[in-house]
């Protein structure tokens, strides 16, 4: 029992590595602050293309969405970070991570928005267009607000996945939360930093998870 406490819940070690992990958390938040809003917006654009009147736009979005949904994000990340330099494109770990996750993420958000857009009947568009609104105005004021509301639980759920996904960035030595914790572990020969990192993720995501279950219950009702 003592050994367990010492190896996993060693408070003095946690105290020592706390500043390092806070720095890691900060980096995780920085990645999220770019990848989530930009990815969500790009996903919306992808979904609008996928459901647009233009055949060309529809045809072009299919391979994009399929590719980035099928390729594991870890593979994509390693390819961007370690493969692209052979083509003369060298990206910093931070750039590689944001690019890889944006590509992956916009495809996933895109599919969610698409389901939302398709849940809105043609009558809504027709009513809006019949009053003289342009196609863009119809999307902005009539279709998208309803579509987003219909898939809000899925959007949030995907957002939680994205936050957890950022831990993959440790493989390209981006000092985010998990990388910092693992570094602390190897310095201290003790697993407590990992437990602390898990606690950080929990504190960060638990409110979102709560909100999500409440939303899901409301939608089900």
């Amino acid at each position, binding site marked *: 029992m003592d050994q367990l406490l010492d190896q996993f819940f060693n408070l003095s070690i946690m105290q020592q590595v706390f500043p390092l992990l806070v720095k890691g958390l900060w980096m995780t938040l920085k990645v999220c602050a770019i990848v989530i809003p930009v990815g969500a917006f790009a996903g919306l654009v992808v979904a609008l293309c996928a459901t647009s009147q233009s055949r060309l736009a529809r045809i072009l979005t299919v391979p994009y969405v399929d590719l980035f949904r099928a390729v594991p994000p870890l593979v994509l990340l390693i390819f961007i970070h370690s493969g692209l330099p052979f083509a003369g494109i060298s990206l910093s770990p931070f750039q590689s991570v944001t690019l890889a996750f944006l590509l992956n993420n916009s495809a996933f958000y895109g599919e969610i928005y698409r389901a939302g857009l398709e849940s809105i009947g043609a009558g809504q568009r*027709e*009513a809006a*267009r019949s009053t003289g609104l342009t196609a863009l*105005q119809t999307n902005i004021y*009539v279709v998208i607000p309803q579509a987003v509301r219909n898939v809000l639980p899925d959007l949030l759920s995907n957002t939680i996945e994205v936050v957890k996904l950022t831990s993959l960035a440790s493989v390209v030595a981006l000092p985010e939360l998990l990388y910092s914790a693992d570094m602390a572990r190897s310095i201290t020969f003790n697993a407590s930093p990992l437990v602390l990192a898990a606690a950080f993720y929990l504190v960060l995501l638990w409110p979102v998870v709560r909100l999500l279950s409440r939303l899901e219950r409301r939608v089900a009702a």
Partner: protein
Amino acid sequence: MLLIHADARRGLPAARPLLLAQVDTALTPDTPILDVRGLTKRFGSTEVLKGIDLKVRPQELVFVIGPSGSGKSTFLRCCNRLEEPTDGSIRVAGVELLAHKVDINAMRRRIGMVFQSFNLYPHMTARGNVMLALRKVLKMPKEQARAEADAALDRVGLADRAGHHPSALSGGQQQRVAIARALALKPELMLFDEPTSALDPELVGSVLGGMRDLKADGMTMLVVSHEMRFAQEAADRVVFMDGGVIVEEGPPSAIFGAPKHERTRAFLSRVLN
């Protein structure tokens, strides 16, 4: 022709003659609000409209009846180009809707439309539904749009429901909000696509009452509907469509009292009994 030559010399594209033709229709009080000529519509290889000609004069209420699949709804939806016609001409207040350069959004705000399934925006209140186009199409300031929206809702007897969402309104009330939404833009023509077909029988009266008031106020209306009693009482003219053509038209007394064509008689005996 001289003008065209002048344009050609200046290197302007040859799309000009159409525009000139558009302008030469002088607007007189007798100009039909809606003037449809030779309208055809094909979906793939099926010809749904096979050459429709119809004029609707100012303040007229024209009723379109016919069996389902006769093309009457498609015809109505062509009149604001929700459905893209295959060929023909549609002039609204003298402006050719099918001209290449027509600003269809500007024309649509002059043509109100009311749908069978209401199509209110569920995420907005009744007032919000009416205000949206006032704000975004007519670019009205918020306060003015709000006042106009409330006035339009008042006209359909729903001033006290302005703050309600569609889900809190009955079908009849929803359809009257939809009428207010179209009406607020002060259209010159209103299209009704089976406005009472989705309503419980006891709610039909309130919507027809609203349409009767519009007629009394001098609105020009083209109505596709199965409300034969309303047609007999309120319509100036009844048009019977079948198989993508207008079979016959005339005052309600003639169409309902002494239909000339066998197809009209057969249809009327089916729906009136």
